[in-house]
């Protein structure tokens, strides 16, 4: 085992090289702060701007992914030209409230000490527990996009896209542009949510809202005009197959349908990555509009724990551009906490970021109300596997919830949340089943206790971190 690198001290460590992390690290470096950006990917950009540095102007990929993707190139360039330190392919597997960080890079353990920590760990796609979602060939819509962004790979056999929400429609049009054979689009959005969303429309027409809305209208129009068979109000989705997906079955209105499928891509919105803030014991809250937990943060991204900030989607879904400005605000907040700037300078540095953030957030409430996850996803039927790692069904969880058990007792009794994904894919579902059984909204305590490791680390690596050498 290679000896670990021990305890270099940083003013600020930023976790995650998406828009929030890049913006935060760049701003901090420009303000002469010692800042380290840690990211598990080989290249900066996060999920949204993945592979952006290898993108060639005018290439097919640039055309397919569109201008909102290409935008990220500048953000990455600015970061690269800043004095910020950068550790790619490095994962954070443990962090203490005293901001000792334990990271792993290429099989070598390293410990870091930070005065301030900015978690910009982003979002993940909401779990879509439906019958057959564990079959090979069933992926998230985001997975298809990742294959396109980082490897220029597109499916060449019938793809069924099932879901709803802005990212879903964007990916559908990207698939069309890439020539992916879309067999059918199963739109799970409900027309009746239009009425509930009307109240959020006036605000969505301010700031950058009209830009988002007109893009959305264009996407929907492109999809309509594409001639792809589209089914609306889709419910009771089941994915069928023996050792891999072969068909889907669903209801649209009163009619049942059954279609052949080579690949099924699911998407029902994105949710914050909360494992790090959960492990740190930061205060969390359930967001009724976004149907997910997020850490409680203030304007500066500050959590309930001193020195720990969260920026971007990890603090509640704000989108790429909102995340970038939150990254800036978290950086400014950290500078202030470090004593590098006074309150007046902080507020000056922040005012443009705040205005821009506000402008990018105007359409968010409308989108949240238009595309809430449907009930069959939030609290699936008894037969549906909710914990993929340990193969635990919603029914098993529901039975123990009825007996008054909480998520951590369920973990011990059912092994749900005990597998390698550490409950990332079942934590929210288990919380919603418990809450539904109780007849209330999910409470912060309905989520698993999260302990190390946040990311894989070998016993050999850990063995290098002892007192005895």
């Amino acid at each position, binding site marked *: 085992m290679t000896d670990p690198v021990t305890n270099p001290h940083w003013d600020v460590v930023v976790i995650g090289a998406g828009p929030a992390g890049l913006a935060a690290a760049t701003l901090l470096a420009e303000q002469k702060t010692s800042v380290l950006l840690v990211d598990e990917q080989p290249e900066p950009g996060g999920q949204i701007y993945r592979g952006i540095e290898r993108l060639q102007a005018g290439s097919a990929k640039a055309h397919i992914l569109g201008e909102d993707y290409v935008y990220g190139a500048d953000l990455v360039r600015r970061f690269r030209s800043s004095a910020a330190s950068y550790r790619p392919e490095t994962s954070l597997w443990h962090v203490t409230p005293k901001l000792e960080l334990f990271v792993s890079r290429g099989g070598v353990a390293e410990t870091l000490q930070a005065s301030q920590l900015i978690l910009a760990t982003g979002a993940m796609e909401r779990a879509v527990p439906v019958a057959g979602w564990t079959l090979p060939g069933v992926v998230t819509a985001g997975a298809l996009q990742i294959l396109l962004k*980082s490897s220029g790979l597109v499916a060449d056999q019938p793809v069924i896209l099932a879901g709803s929400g802005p990212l879903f429609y964007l990916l559908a049009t990207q698939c069309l542009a890439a020539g992916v054979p879309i067999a059918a689009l199963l739109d799970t959005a409900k027309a009746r949510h239009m009425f509930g969303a009307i109240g959020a429309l006036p605000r969505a027409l301010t700031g950058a809202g009209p830009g988002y809305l007109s893009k959305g209208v264009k996407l929907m129009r492109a999809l309509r005009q594409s001639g792809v068979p589209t089914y609306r109000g889709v419910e009771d989705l089941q994915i069928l197959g023996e050792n891999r997906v072969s068909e889907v079955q669903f209801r649209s209105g009163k009619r049942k349908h059954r279609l052949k499928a080579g690949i099924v891509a699911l998407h029902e919105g994105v949710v914050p990555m909360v494992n790090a803030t959960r492990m740190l014991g930061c205060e969390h809250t359930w967001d009724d509009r976004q149907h997910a937990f997020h850490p409680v943060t203030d304007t500066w991204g500050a959590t309930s724990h001193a020195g720990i900030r969260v920026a971007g989607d990890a603090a509640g879904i704000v989108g790429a551009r909102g995340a970038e400005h939150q990254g800036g605000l978290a950086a400014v907040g950290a500078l202030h906490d470090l004593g590098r700037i006074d309150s007046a300078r902080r507020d000056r540095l922040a005012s443009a970021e705040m205005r821009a953030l506000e402008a990018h957030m105007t359409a968010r409430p409308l989108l949240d109300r238009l595309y809430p996850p449907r009930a069959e996803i939030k609290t699936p039927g008894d037969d549906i596997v909710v914990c993929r790692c340990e193969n635990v069904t919603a029914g098993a969880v529901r039975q123990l919830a009825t007996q008054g058990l909480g998520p951590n007792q369920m973990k011990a009794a059912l092994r749900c949340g005990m597998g*390698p994904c550490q409950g990332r894919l079942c934590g929210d579902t288990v919380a919603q089943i418990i809450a539904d059984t109780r007849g209330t909204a999910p409470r912060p305590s309905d989520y698993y206790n999260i302990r190390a490791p946040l990311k894989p680390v070998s016993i050999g690596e850990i063995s290098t971190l002892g007192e005895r050498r």
Partner: protein
Amino acid sequence: MFTRLTQDSAASDQTIEFTVNDRKVVARMGDTVAAALLAAGEMQFRISPSADKPRGPYCMMGVCFECLVTIDGRAGRQACLTAVKSGMQVIIPEGGRND
């Protein structure tokens, strides 16, 4: 299964060779092991020990741990977070091919 965009950037045209269960496979520089396996027609990456059923990549971003494969003798590697390298030896359950 999956195919390359014909006019993708020149940088990723650089090919490398690795093996899947002793079968030689060509990948592109910059591919993750998961992307390279999918491009090679593999879809079943592992057998879930709890369900005893085949599983394949789901999220492609390190969250789901469904793409665990054996890489250079080490079991349980996340194929979607590991960059493919020349000469890498990847093992997935036999019978996992779908072409």
